[in-house]
C-alpha cells in the first residue's frame, strides 16, 4: 500500500484547508438568509467514508453529523451526485443541536469507491413552526421549532427530488429565501465534492487515505501531549449554571467531573440537572466536550488540522439521558446556545482546577434579540439581531470585548436602518461589564434601537444575570446584561432574560445591554496605565477603577494618582481565592 510521506501530508493538509475555505466563501456570497450572509452562521467540512471528521471548524458545536445519514442510507446505496439533507436533532443525537441548522452532505466517489463526504451546514431563517424565525424562548416542544427533516436524499445522482423540495418550501414563511439558501448550500457541497475528487486524482487514492490517517495522528498526538501536560492524574470537578429556561425554571446546573489516570481522560457529566421544560436543553453530542478540549489544546499549534484526532483529547464522555445535556425527545432545544457556552465554561473550569488557575476565565453567552409581527399586507416578518458579549480573560491577555462568537458578524447600523423597520440609535461598549482582573474580562455591548414599524413583539435572549461569568486566579466575575423597553421613562418595561412576547410599538426605544466575561488574576495587579486607558476608552468607570482595581484616577488630566493608588492597593487589597462569582470561592461544584 502506498503511504503518504511527510511532505505530501502537509500538501494534502493545505489542499483540504483551501477547499474548505472555498466552500465557505461560496456559501457566504450566495446565501440569502441574513443569518448566513451577515451573521455568517455556517461552516463547511470534510468527512471520510465512515463519517469521521477530516477537517472541521473552530466551533465546538457539532458532533458526528454524517452518521445519521449513513444510518438511513447505507453507504452501498449511495451514488455519485447524491446530496443528503437533514436537521433532525434527536435522530442525529445532537449532531445538529437545534432545528434551524440544516446539514447538506454530498458523498464523494473516486473510481466507484466512496471516499468521503463534502458537507456544509447553515442556519436557515425560517423553517415553519409556531413563530416566524422558528425560535422562541417560550417553546415547550421541538415541534414548535419548525419542520423536522430526517435524513433525506434531496438529489439522487444529480437529479433534484422535486417532491421533497416542494414540501420544504411549503413549510417556510419565506420560500424565496429558503430556495436561495438551498441553492447556495447545494453549490457549496458540489464544489467541495469536485475539489475532493481533484485531490484524490492528484495524489492517488491510497496516498490520500493514508494522509488522512497521518493528519488525524498528528492532531491526536498534539492534543494528547498538551492535555497530558495540563492534567496530572487525579479527579477534578466543576459546576456552573444556566440562569433559567425561560419558563421560570432554574438555575440549571451542569456538573462535570474529570477523571485522569496515567493513560486515560474521562468526563462524567451525569450529575448535571434534569432537562428543562423550556428550550435551553442542549442535546450534546459526546464529540462536543472532546472538541472543546481539543480546540483548547490546539491553541498553541495553529498548524494542526481540526479533525477526528482532536476528539482523542478525551477518551470517554458519560452523559445521563433525561438531563440538561441529554434531553429526551421531544424537549425543545432552540436556545441551546446558552447551555453550550456554559458547557464550554465548565470545561474551562476543569482546566483551571487542574492547572491551579492557569486557563481561560468564563465567557458570556452570545445574545440575540428578536422582533416579530405582521406587515400591513398580512405577511409575517421576523428579524433577529445578534449582539456581542464579553469573553473570558486569559493568563496572557484581556478577554475579547464585544465579540459574538467565532466568525459571526453583526448587522451594521446602516444595514439595520435600510433593511429593518428600526433605527439604530447607539452601539457601544457596556462599561464596567467586564470582570475585573490583572487581565480584564471582555466587556459586553449596549445596542439602542428605535422601533419604526408596525406593532410587534420582541424576545431577548441573554444569560449570566443570576450567574455571571466567573473570574479565576484572583480575577472577578463579570457584570450582567439587561434588556429594557423605553428605559428611564414612565413606560419603562424590563424584558427579562429569555422572555418572549414583549409588545413594542412605533417609536419605542429598546436598550439591550449584554454582559461581560470573567477576569483573570488579581485586579490590583493590573498596571495602572492600563486601567487609565480603560477609563479613557469608556471600558471602566472612574468609580470602578477605584473600587475594583484600586486605581485612583484624578479627573483632571485625567491621570493616575500614583501615590493614592499605591496606598489604596497596599492597604485594601482583598484576599483572593481560585474562583470568583460575586465573591471569592475556593471551588465551584
Amino acid at each position: 500500500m502506498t503511504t503518504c510521506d511527510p511532505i505530501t501530508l502537509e500538501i494534502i493538509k493545505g489542499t483540504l484547508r483551501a477547499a474548505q475555505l472555498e466552500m465557505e466563501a461560496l456559501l457566504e456570497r450566495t446565501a440569502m438568509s441574513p443569518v448566513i450572509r451577515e451573521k455568517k452562521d455556517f461552516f463547511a467540512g470534510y468527512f471520510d467514508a465512515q463519517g469521521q471528521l477530516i477537517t472541521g471548524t473552530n466551533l465546538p458545536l457539532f458532533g458526528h453529523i454524517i452518521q445519521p445519514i449513513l444510518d438511513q442510507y447505507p453507504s452501498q446505496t449511495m451514488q455519485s451526485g447524491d446530496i443528503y439533507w437533514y436537521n433532525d436533532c434527536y435522530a442525529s443525537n445532537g449532531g445538529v443541536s437545534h432545528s434551524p441548522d440544516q446539514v447538506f452532505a454530498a458523498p464523494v466517489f473516486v473510481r466507484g469507491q466512496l471516499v468521503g463526504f463534502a458537507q456544509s451546514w447553515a442556519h436557515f431563517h425560517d423553517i415553519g413552526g409556531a413563530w416566524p424565525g422558528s425560535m422562541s424562548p417560550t417553546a415547550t416542544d421541538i415541534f414548535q421549532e419548525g419542520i423536522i427533516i430526517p435524513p433525506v436524499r434531496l438529489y439522487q445522482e444529480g437529479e433534484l427530488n422535486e417532491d421533497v423540495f416542494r414540501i420544504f418550501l411549503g413549510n417556510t414563511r419565506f420560500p424565496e429565501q429558503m430556495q436561495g439558501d438551498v441553492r447556495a448550500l447545494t453549490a457549496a457541497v458540489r464544489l467541495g465534492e469536485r475539489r475532493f475528487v481533484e485531490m484524490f486524482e492528484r495524489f492517488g487514492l491510497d496516498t490520500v487515505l493514508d494522509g488522512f490517517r497521518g493528519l488525524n495522528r498528528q492532531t491526536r498526538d498534539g492534543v494528547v501531549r498538551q492535555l497530558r501536560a495540563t492534567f496530572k492524574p487525579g479527579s477534578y470537578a466543576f459546576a456552573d449554571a444556566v440562569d433559567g429556561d425561560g419558563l421560570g425554571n432554574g438555575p440549571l446546573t451542569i456538573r462535570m467531573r474529570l477523571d485522569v489516570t496515567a493513560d486515560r481522560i474521562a468526563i462524567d457529566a451525569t450529575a448535571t440537572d434534569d432537562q428543562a421544560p423550556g428550550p435551553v436543553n442542549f442535546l450534546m453530542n459526546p464529540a462536543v466536550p472532546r472538541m472543546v478540549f481539543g480546540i483548547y489544546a490546539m491553541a498553541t499549534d495553529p498548524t494542526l488540522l481540526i479533525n477526528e484526532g482532536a476528539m482523542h483529547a478525551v477518551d470517554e464522555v458519560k452523559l445521563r439521558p433525561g438531563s440538561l445535556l441529554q434531553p429526551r425527545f421531544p424537549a425543545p432545544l432552540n436556545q441551546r446556545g446558552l447551555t453550550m457556552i456554559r458547557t464550554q465554561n465548565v470545561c474551562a473550569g476543569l482546566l483551571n482546577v487542574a492547572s491551579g488557575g492557569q486557563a481561560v476565565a468564563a465567557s458570556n453567552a452570545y445574545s440575540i434579540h428578536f422582533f416579530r409581527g405582521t406587515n400591513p399586507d398580512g405577511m409575517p416578518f421576523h428579524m433577529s439581531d445578534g449582539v456581542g458579549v464579553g469573553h473570558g480573560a486569559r493568563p496572557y491577555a484581556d478577554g475579547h470585548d464585544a465579540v459574538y462568537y467565532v466568525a459571526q458578524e453583526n448587522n451594521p447600523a446602516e444595514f439595520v436602518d435600510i433593511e429593518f423597520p428600526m433605527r439604530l440609535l447607539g452601539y457601544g461598549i457596556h462599561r464596567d461589564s467586564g470582570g475585573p482582573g490583572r487581565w480584564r474580562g471582555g466587556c459586553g455591548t449596549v445596542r439602542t434601537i428605535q422601533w419604526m414599524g408596525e406593532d410587534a413583539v420582541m424576545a431577548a435572549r441573554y444569560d449570566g444575570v443570576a450567574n455571571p461569568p466567573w473570574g479565576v486566579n484572583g480575577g472577578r466575575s463579570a457584570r450582567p446584561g439587561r434588556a429594557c423597553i423605553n428605559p428611564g421613562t414612565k413606560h419603562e418595561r424590563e424584558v427579562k432574560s429569555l422572555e418572549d412576547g414583549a409588545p413594542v410599538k412605533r417609536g419605542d426605544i429598546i436598550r439591550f445591554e449584554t454582559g461581560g466575561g470573567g477576569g483573570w488574576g488579581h485586579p490590583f495587579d493590573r498596571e495602572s496605565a492600563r486601567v487609565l486607558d480603560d477609563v479613557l476608552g469608556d471600558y471602566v468607570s472612574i468609580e470602578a477603577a477605584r473600587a475594583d482595581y484600586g486605581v485612583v484616577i484624578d479627573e483632571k488630566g485625567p491621570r493616575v494618582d500614583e501615590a493614592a493608588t499605591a496606598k489604596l492597593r497596599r492597604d485594601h487589597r482583598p484576599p483572593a481565592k481560585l474562583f470568583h462569582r460575586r465573591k471569592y470561592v475556593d471551588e465551584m461544584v
Partner: protein
Amino acid sequence: MSEESAVAIDIGGTFTDIVLFDRRRGRIHNAKVPTTPADPSAGFMAGIDAALGAGGLPASSIRQVLHGTTVATNLILESKGVAAALLTTAGFKHVLEIGRHDIPRKANMYSWVKPKRPVPPQRVFEIAGRLDPAGNEIEKLDEAAVRDAARRIRALGVNAVAICFLHSYADARHERRACELVLAEHPQALVSISSEVLPVFREYERSMVTILNVYVMPAVSSYVAKLEERLQARNVAAPLLMMKSSGGVTGAATIRREPVQTALSGPAAGVVGAMFVGEASGHGNLISIDIGGTSADICLIRAGDPGVTVEGRVGDWPMPLPMIDINTIGAGGGSIAALAPSGGLTVGPRSAGAIPGPVAYGRGGTEPTVTDAHLALGHLTPYLLNGSMKLDRPAAVAAIEQKIGRPLGLDTMAAARGILSVVDNNMVGAIRVVSVERGHDPRDFALVPFGGAGPLHGGALARLLGIRTIIVPPAPGVLSALGLLVAQLKSDYSRTCLQRPLDYDLMRIGRVFAEMEEEAVQWLVREGVPPEGRVLLRQASLRYIHQGFELAVPWPDGGVTRDALDRCMAAFHRRHEQLYTFAQEDTPVEIVNLRLTAIGRLERPTLPRIAAGRGLDGARIGEQRVESASGVAPWPIYDRDRLGADTDLRGPAIVQQLDATTLVLPGQRGHVDDHGILIVTEEN
C-alpha cells in the same frame, strides 16, 4: 525636435530601480541605485540622474515622473501612523472598537487577541445629527458639538481628523459642514470626510478607511513634498504621478488628499508591468506571480483586464477601496522552513527578510529558507548579482539537514525538495484562489513569474497547474518599475444607490452616473488629459434580492434605459454563474452601488527589440550539478544577457541574469523573442 522622456522609480528595501523611456528614440534605459532609507528621496533623485546619464538625456527632457510608494502601507502594517481623531454619529463612539464583533473564521478563539485600533476611543467624538438611508435629514447637525470637539482635538495637539457620519454615502452635507467647522476652529487640521473617501454603506469599514486616510496623510504628504522639492531643484517641471492600489496613476495633489489610495499599490505596478510584457508577447490571458523575499503577489488578468475588488484588506483592517484583485501570501525566497510542534513541515509566512536573510547569505541566519533549498539542490549558483555576492552552500545544506531532514527522517536533498514542494503548493493554492475559485481554468492562461525569485518557481508552478506557457520578462527584477512607466491615469468613483426590483428608478441611476461623470471629467481636466485621451467606464454592482454580496458588472454605454438595465442584469446572471456555479434567473435582482472609472491615456513606450545573439553556445557560461527527484545531473548555465533574439534552448537549463535566475525544467523548451522575452513552453 526636442528631447522627451518619462521616468519611473520603484523604491525597494535594498535597491531603487529606475526605468527611463526615451520617447524620441523609442529606447528604454534601466538603472539601479542603493535605496536610501533615511531619506528615500535622495536615492530617488540619484536614480533619476543615473538613468538620465545612461540615456544621455537632460533632466529638462522629462515629461512625466511615475512613482509607487509603500509609505502608507508600511505605516498601516506597523501601526506607525499619526495620532488621529474621529468624529462619529452620536451613539457610535465605539464603532471602531466593536467593528463587526467577530473573531476571524480561521482563528482559535482561545489564542486570538483583538488588534488595537488606529484611533483609541478617547479620540472618538460623538456628534448629534442624523440622516436616514435616503439622505434626508432626521436631526440637525449639532454644530456646537463639532466646534467643541475641534477645540478639544486641537488642545490634544492632534491634527489629523476623520469624519464619518451614518448614511453620509447618501448625502454629504453634514460631513461637509462639520469639516468647515473643524477647520474654522482648528486651521492646522488635516480633515478627511468619508463621503469623499468612500461614499458606500457599512459604517465600520467606511470609518476605518477614512481614519486610515488621515492616519497616513502627514507622512505621505511630506514624502511627496520632498520628492517634489528634489525634482524642482533639478528643474524637472514634469508632473509627479503616483501609483494607486487600483493599478492606475494619479497626480500628487490627489494622493495628498487621499493617500489611502496608495495603501495596496505596492504590487499593483508589477501587475501592470506583467500585462505590458504579456501584450508584447501576444498574450492577454495571464496569471502574474511576483515572488520576492517574504511574499508572493498573484493576479489573474483576463483579456488584458486585471480584476478590481473592493473587498481588500491591509493588515487587520478592511480596505473597501477599488484595488487590483491581488492575492498575497507569505511565501518568498526568504520564507523560513520549520517544523511545528506536531512535526508538520511549514514554510513561511515567517521570513528571514533581508537581515539576517537565508543561511547561505552568511549574515547570521540559522533557519533554512526557500533560497537555501534552491541553493542546496543546485538551482542557484554560489554567486549572485554577477558575482558580487557569494552564497554558502555547505551552510545551507547543513541547516536543512539539521532542522528539517533529520527530524523528519528524510535525506537532505529530499528535505530540500520537500521545502520547495510545500512552498510551491502554497503558491498553487493562492493561484487557485484567483483562477479556479473565480471560475477560470488556469490552463487557459500564461504564467508571468517575476520578482527576484519568480523565475525559479515558474516552471514548477506551471506544471502543477497544467499551464503550458511561461512568460519570463526581460528584466524580471525590475518589472514593477516598468509597470509604473506604462500605467494609465485612473480614478474611481462609487455611490451607494439602492434600487429594489420592480421600481428601478432609471432617472436616479442616470443622475448618479452624471454626477460621477462630472466629477471624473473635472479630475481629468486637472490632470491635463486632452478630450481624446479620456475614457469613462460605468459599472453597477448587483445582487439577488436577500443576498449580502454584490458583483460588479459593466453598465452599457449610452443612455440609461430599460434595455441597458436588462443587459446589465444579463451580464450579472452570467457572472454569478461563472463565479458561483449557478445563476438564478427566476430571482429578482437589486442594484446596490454605481461605479465609474475614469482613465486618462498617457503615451506608452513599446518594448524595444533586442539584437540577434551569437547562438546558444555563445551564451553558455558553465554547468552545475542539480539534484532532482530522478537523480543528479549536470544542467547547463546560460547568461540571459547573451541570449539574443530568436534563440531556442531546451531544458534542463539554468538561465542567469543580474536580478533573477530562471529554471527551465527537463521537458520544457525556451524561446527568446525579439523583445528579449523568454517564453518557456512544455515540449509535449
